[in-house]
């Protein structure tokens, strides 16, 4: 034993060094060092093996007997040859068992089959290899962006399939859908003639493609095209609810695992240093440059963390006056942020109003190009706001005197708010156009419940807006990459020196990119009721986006200096996605339940509200089915459901509490046991040294 002890730190003193050796011989330490039958235990070199290896191996084997029996071979931390022996033993035992019970055999077959199926499903994932490679070269944060993109693609593909089965198929199964109403077909709610008369020039063709008007307006792309016949209304509505529900479930499933981990991590805000050190290294990193970047990154983070601790300690020692000043600054800055956000929202609202007015002008209506520009003004304004304000928030965040991790979260929350709320403002201004500002008694809205003169088919109009937002978002991404990122890289590569290198180093900003993605998806969710083919278009867009981002990543970007933690991504991204889904449900549900559908277009023409289709079609069912469906909608069903779910929730909370108490109790036990262990070992050492001189 003496051979292995020369490295022991001196401060322990002579009795201490043998104390350490006593502790090392404990069975718990021995189990860790055991590496399976026939293999040297961990940490012992060959000469040691000759001295006392035989004895300790015996002890180790005894100590880990239990472990051997319960674990599958591949989950043992042993080398291959030891695992092979273990597997043989296990197979022998299983052979003995299986003659008695066939259940075990079937269970094993079942698990094998499940594994195979999982592997097969994993094989179906597109771009698995690319995403892995990105993770290897750029770290977990960037990878999480791409896996989110892939997840969103899955959602869109599923939604497209639903639309194809429940909307497109029923439409064509009942014969060719009717053409658009002519200009002279008029009813009490005005007339609607979507087809522009006369020959279309190339410019107006392009305009139609980009704005969804002209020949696109009366096409399967938009709500207005679908005829009101058969069960199309029901399937149309059901497809929207089904895809919404499907998205909700899939996002919940994705966020639950992240949530679990984050809650665990949260509960020990105390362990931040250990995490930073023990799980800091991304073993997938390769390439000397990336490794050096990452090392510098970690050094920087550790230093900042230590400094932050210092700041926190100082903040605790602040006097009341200083504290008040800090809070005053924060309050003022928050007011500034609110003012900026308010101004942005008002701007969006104002621009949308003005655009509507501008489009009426004869000057604009005659020039298709001008018309195109004008119709894109709200989208352009929205995108500009989204480009300009986040850096401002970034600046403000630095002034507030929060710790850096706080800052990032704050900036993210503000940006999310900006992105999603500006979309809501756009929808709000549309709403006020459609319903005359919510005033049902206004002269334009009195007859039909919506502004039929300006918007004879308002659903199609909303769909067109969302269609434009989707296209514009894609165009912006393309233009940004092709006109800014690539040229910048090329020019900076041409001019040498540190300036060129500094300007040429682009970083992949994960938070910004992710927010852009979630914004795009929210637009699609809002629009997919009014524009059923939007998910399909979005699928194509995301595929394109994936390749574009991959190209820019590999050709122009270097790993970010400020990392975005993968754990934050797994929790925060689905949360924002969920927020987007909920926000997008508001306008859709509002228009389904409360606004009168257009009288001249769409599958719900002539109904009181869009939802009215459902009770109406239920009434055509047999008596028992009717009763069942109406029971589902009644209070007699809802109240017990609510009660049961709240009982379940209370139960879960109580369970979690009791587990928490158990954990802290066990922790205390460990501490006392450890103290006992050290005390006993010290006693043993002391006795030994007393006996030796005698």
């Amino acid at each position, binding site marked *: 034993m003496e051979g*292995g002890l020369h490295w022991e*730190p001196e401060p322990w003193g002579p009795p201490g060094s043998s104390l350490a050796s006593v502790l*090392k011989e404990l069975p718990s*330490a021995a189990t*860790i*060092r055991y590496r399976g039958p026939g293999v*040297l235990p*961990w*940490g012992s070199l060959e000469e040691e093996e000759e001295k006392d290896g035989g004895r300790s191996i015996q002890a180790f084997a005894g100590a880990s007997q239990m472990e051997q029996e319960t674990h599958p*071979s*591949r*989950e*043992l*931390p042993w*080398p*291959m040859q030891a695992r*092979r022996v273990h*597997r043989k033993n296990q197979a022998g035992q299983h052979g003995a068992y299986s003659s008695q019970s066939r259940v075990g055999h079937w269970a094993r077959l079942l698990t094998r089959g499940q594994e195979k199926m999982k592997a097969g499903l994993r094989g179906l994932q597109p771009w698995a290899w690319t995403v892995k490679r990105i*993770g*290897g070269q750029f770290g*977990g944060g960037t990878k999480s962006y791409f896996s989110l993109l892939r997840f969103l693609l899955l959602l869109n593909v599923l939604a497209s399939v639903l639309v194809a089965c429940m909307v497109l198929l029923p439409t064509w199964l009942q014969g060719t859908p009717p053409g658009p109403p002519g200009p002279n077909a008029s009813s009490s709610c005005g007339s609607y003639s979507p087809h522009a008369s006369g020959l279309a020039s190339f410019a107006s063709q392009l305009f139609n493609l980009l704005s969804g008007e002209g020949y696109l307006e009366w096409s399967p792309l938009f709500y207005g095209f679908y005829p009101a016949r058969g069960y199309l209304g029901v399937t149309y509505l059901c497809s929207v609810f089904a895809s919404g529900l499907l998205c909700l479930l899939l996002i919940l499933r994705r966020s639950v695992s992240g949530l679990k981990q*984050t809650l665990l*991590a949260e*509960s*020990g805000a*105390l*362990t*931040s*240093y*250990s*995490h930073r*050190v*023990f*799980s*800091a*290294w991304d*073993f*997938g*990193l*390769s*390439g000397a440059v990336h*490794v*050096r970047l990452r*090392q*510098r990154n*970690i*050094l920087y983070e*550790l230093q900042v963390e*230590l400094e932050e*601790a210092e700041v926190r300690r100082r903040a605790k020692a602040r006097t009341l006056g200083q504290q008040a000043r800090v809070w005053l600054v924060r309050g003022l800055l928050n007011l500034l942020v609110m003012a900026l956000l308010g101004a942005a929202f008002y701007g969006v609202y104002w621009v949308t109003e003005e655009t509507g007015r501008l489009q009426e002008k004869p000057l604009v209506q005659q020039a298709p190009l001008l018309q195109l520009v004008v119709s894109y003004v709200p989208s352009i304004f929205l995108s500009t706001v989204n480009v300009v304000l986040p850096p401002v928030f970034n600046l403000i965040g630095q002034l507030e005197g929060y710790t850096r991790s706080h800052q990032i979260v704050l900036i993210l929350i503000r940006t999310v708010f900006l992105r999603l709320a500006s979309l809501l403002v756009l929808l709000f201004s549309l709403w006020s156009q459609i319903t005359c500002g919510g005033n049902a008694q206004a002269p334009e809205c009195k007859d039909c419940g919506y502004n039929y003169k300006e918007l004879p088919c308002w659903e199609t109009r909303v769909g067109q807006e969302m269609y434009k937002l989707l296209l514009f978002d894609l165009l912006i991404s393309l233009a940004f990459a092709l006109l800014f990122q690539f040229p910048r890289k090329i020019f900076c590569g041409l001019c040498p020196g540190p300036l060129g290198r500094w300007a040429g180093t682009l970083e992949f900003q994960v938070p910004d990119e992710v927010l852009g993605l979630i914004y795009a998806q929210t637009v699609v969710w809002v629009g997919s009721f009014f524009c059923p083919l939007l998910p399909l278009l979005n699928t194509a867009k995301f595929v394109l986006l994936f390749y574009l981002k991959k190209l820019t990543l590999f050709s122009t970007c270097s790993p970010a200096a400020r990392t975005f933690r*993968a*754990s934050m991504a797994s*929790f925060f991204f689905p949360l924002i996605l969920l927020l987007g889904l909920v926000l997008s449900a508001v306008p859709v549900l509002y228009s389904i339940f409360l606004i009168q559908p257009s009288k001249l277009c769409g599958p719900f023409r002539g109904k009181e509200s869009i939802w009215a289709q459902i009770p109406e079609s239920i009434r055509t069912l047999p008596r028992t089915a009717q009763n069942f469906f109406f029971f589902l909608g009644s209070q007699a069903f809802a109240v017990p459901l609510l009660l049961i779910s709240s009982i379940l929730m209370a139960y879960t909370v109580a369970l979690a509490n009791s587990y928490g108490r158990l954990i802290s109790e066990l*922790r205390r036990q*460990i*501490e006392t*046991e450890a*103290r006992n*262990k*050290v005390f006993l070992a010290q006693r043993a050492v002391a006795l030994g040294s007393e006996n030796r001189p005698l």
Partner: protein
Amino acid sequence: MGGSGSRLSKELLAEYQDLTFLTKQEIVQAHRRFSELLPRDKQNVEDSLRERVSFEDILSIPELKANPFKERICKVFSTAPSRDSLSFEDFLDLLSVFSDTATPDIKSHYAFRIFDFDDDGTLDREDLCRLVNCLTGEGEDTQLSASEMKQLIDNILEESDIDRDGTINLSEFQHVISRSPDFVSSFKIVL
């Protein structure tokens, strides 16, 4: 697949699949990469299963080359008596532990062994200091100052050393790691 014309037998592949967390393709790929490290005349199946590759050669593959923990990784997975070379099965062990599907338990176990620089079964101050130096780079200008290092290690022990014996043992380490959601995603090497 087998670029050098060498193929593993079906039984052996099945056995490796059972004993590791790797898929068939990954095993075949690993075998091809391993064979390439051997001298030309040893690249057939029998020899490739028997031969060992020295650390120098194994560390030349790009996936490991720049890793600051590369020597530790090889040492931990080597079953050679003098711990200086890897056999094909050791190499598979390595890839299996670093694969996507390995359990968090086994990953954290091997992480502990990699971070335990003096192989004594616990992480003491010395180990933590070397670990941090590996993370930040060994150069003079990239290291933490002595006082920063002391403060950092004090903080780590304060958080993770549950039984207050001055070192972090495996169960304490696994306790911390199990609450660190980034660990499993970062403890990966892909060929």
